[in-house]
């Protein structure tokens, strides 16, 4: 069962970046692949991402330069 708070945070960031549903679906996979490959977040021991880290991941995923 998915952890709702984490899923909600991802949804919130996707809205901020104007992602459509298809893009959001792939962004969720991207976040998981990042964690699997060792690029983990600092929100907790599970390696979940903070809101700031999720925004950074969204920029990476969408190819937005800072």
């Amino acid at each position: 069962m998915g952890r709702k708070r984490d899923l909600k945070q991802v949804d919130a960031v996707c809205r901020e970046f104007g992602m459509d549903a298809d893009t959001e679906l792939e962004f969720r996979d991207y976040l998981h692949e990042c964690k699997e490959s060792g690029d983990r977040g600092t929100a907790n021991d599970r390696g979940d991402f903070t809101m700031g880290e999720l925004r950074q991941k969204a920029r990476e995923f969408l190819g937005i330069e800072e």
Partner: protein
Amino acid sequence: MAGVVNPSDIREETTGDLTGLGALLQQIVGQPFLFFRETYGDELTIHFGALKEVMSPKLRKRQRGSYVLTLRGSVWKIEGGATPGLYLTGPVAFPPGSTSELKPFPLAAFEQQPPIEPGAIVITAKPFLDTEYGGGIGVYFVFSDRSLIVIRPNPADLILEADPDLPRIADWELFTPHSRYLRVGPGSVWSYTASKRDVPSA
């Protein structure tokens, strides 16, 4: 008499009307199960239909199903057909202190040891009003290998709407090859709208 549903038609947010929701769900009947995939936040997704290439060049896993069912934060049960096994999640399956019959099964293991036979066909897809769980909309799928998936809204959400600063998420979603997706919940609300921004509404 026959009836027709156009899977490209948009259906804006609706409350109830399980008949209409059930009709749209019929497009997945006849589609083969492909694979499970774990995704961020301990969510399980289930892929059906034909294999297709993902859009993003950033993803390592390059393929997805033409239909993708996302289980979000819902409670679910999967019953294996050819390979017996009852896979459970959620507070009902795991009441405090009673795990003697339940062995841990990581989500990643669904990808390697799927309890549904790849290629098994969806023969039933039906939504239901989950009165036990406060009136949200659940759904079940039956497969040709006698496997079963039941998805139910999480009852914990009824007690307290946590995180008021964050958006409420769906109980489950079904992405389709028609650039439309079903978004069901929370509660008895659902919609069938564009999943891709550049597709004009029908």
